[in-house]
């Protein structure tokens, strides 16, 4: 463990987040390896990756904020500008493109009035196009806060946007979205989990970003 170097460096994070950060750091032989999970933790704490969040991460692993920024800027999932509450990522790589992803993205942009790479003024919805998300058998595919919906159509994409605007779900349950808006899937998933994503970062237990009854199955 790296010592906290000065109280000012650690301002911002609550005790519980710091405790979680310590647990994550302990998972690695070298604290530096915890940079990536801690960057997600910082995003979950403030909704996106702020300078303050990067300073917290730096303090927790014994790097300078500049070193942490250098890492964060390499990876597309660390959002350094405030994304909306719901991040719609539309895959436009080869397999999705062959089956109409550009039209799906166009429908999402049109219905939400948000261009890819942008966020609506309210801060509710961000839209982006992404490279292959490993859902090629269920192309075209999108994710909302990284929860997957496969077998999209332009009409379903519009419905998804309208639903997000109207229902404003607390958390995104992938299973629910697939049932409401999805079609053909890459493979038979078997049971869905009911885990859900709280924001525009992965819903993963060790990060404390999973909402809902983890592990509960709906058959």
């Amino acid at each position, binding site marked *: 463990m790296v010592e906290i170097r000065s109280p000012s460096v650690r301002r911002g994070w609550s005790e519980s987040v710091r405790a979680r950060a310590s647990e994550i750091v302990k998972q690695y032989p070298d604290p530096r390896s915890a940079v990536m999970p801690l960057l997600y933790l910082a995003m979950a704490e403030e909704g996106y990756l702020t300078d303050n969040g990067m300073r917290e991460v730096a303090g927790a692993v014994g790097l300078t904020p500049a070193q942490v920024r250098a890492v964060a800027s390499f990876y597309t999932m660390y959002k350094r500008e405030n994304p909306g509450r719901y991040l719609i990522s539309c895959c436009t790589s080869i397999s999705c493109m062959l089956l109409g992803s550009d039209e799906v993205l166009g429908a999402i942009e049109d219905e939400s009035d948000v261009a890819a790479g942008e966020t609506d003024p309210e801060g509710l919805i961000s839209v982006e196009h992404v490279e292959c998300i*490993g859902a090629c058998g269920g192309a075209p595919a999108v994710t909302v806060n990284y929860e997957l919906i496969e077998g999209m159509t332009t009409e379903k994409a519009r419905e998804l946007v309208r639903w997000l605007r109207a229902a404003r779900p607390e958390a995104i349950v992938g299973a629910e979205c697939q049932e409401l808006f999805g079609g053909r899937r890459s493979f038979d998933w078997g049971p869905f989990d009911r885990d859900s994503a709280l924001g525009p970062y992965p819903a993963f237990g060790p990060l404390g970003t999973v909402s809902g009854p983890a592990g509960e199955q709906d058959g």
Partner: protein
Amino acid sequence: MSAPSIVTDRMTRHPSDSHTLERYLETGGYQALARALQMPPEEVTGEVKAANLRGRGGAGFPCGVKWSFLAPAKPAYVVVNGDESEPGTFKDRQLMERDPHQMLEGTIITSYANGANHAFIYIRGEYPRSARRVQQAVEDAYAAGYLGSDILGSGFDLEVTVHLGAGAYICGEETGLLNSLEGRRGEPRLKPPYYPAAKGLYMKPTIVNNVETLANVPWIIQNGGEAFAAIGPEGSQGTRLFSISGHVRRPGNYELVMGLTWRELIYEVAGGIPGDRALKCWIPGGASAPWFVPDDHLDLPVTLDDTAKAGSMLGSGAVVIMDETTCTVRATERLVRFFAHESCGQCTPCREGCSWLERILRRIEEGAGREVDVDMLLDISDNISPGLAWPPRMTTICPLGPSAVSPILAITSYFKDELMAHIHQGGCPLG
């Protein structure tokens, strides 16, 4: 196809709960681990060598040989490459979501064989469902004594950490992955000297194996390397998961014995093309692989060696089918855009070259192409991959840049007429 099924057997027979420890144990789970722990580690490696299990991540390197290269320095590490990101590939996601314990048992056996007491499972950030399932499996395995100290009374200890990526294809390259796991930018390292088996994670000896590769290990230990090697043609033994996508009636992951023909794979396994449209071309092994066309390749056997001899690769097992309605310039633009987006930026030929290629292709697709653009595409490609040969020669640290050249060669050879029509007609002739 009456293929013996190895890695998808449990999830096929028990679709509702194949991911749980209870079902795993009921179906013979962790018995291979118990058996392996009774064997000397080098004997475990010997079985995997005898199986001639070749890596399922892309390079196809023999897994047991890789293990035997591990330097003796301690500590040693095992890293599971679950950063599946090659466009067209979605097989490891299925293995992680539907049968996480199988991959985990393979990881524990691999760690034992290689004297590693800490293993890392690196899963791409866009796969949170996979990560949740694997994390649950790890926690259940700890609670049941398959991980932690003195596993099954053998004296062997193993810690496992599940690590999430954050959206960078290049982290699927093993040295880029190791940099990422060390909390750095995921830039590949130069080989030599940084072969993971000698100087890997934290500069210690490290085995990096793909998810599917490791998922085969429990079966090999239970049934013997010879039994595995008896399945399928020489050099392509065992089964293999193919991710089939694009213009086919039945896209999906299929566990197949290699040696069938591409015609059988496309028309029987995947059900052929919707509307009985004609097949135009296909990518036999992920976005990086040179394309195949019906006239030359439809009746070739699907094996690692036959595919290599024909100038391509099975790569990650991703087969992308394109029918006659496909604009190959647009498909190429989309593939090259991927590599331009994912270039880590270390090497000039890749960083600059891929984005130049992308912009020229977009110009051609949008109708502003010039005849000289064709030569320019080839010239830039030659700067990234001198001689435009297969396997590619490289001016770069890793093969990402040369991968962008594969589709360029397809449209400048097989589909030259279509490319020229774009230029002469000022746009896409397919509309």
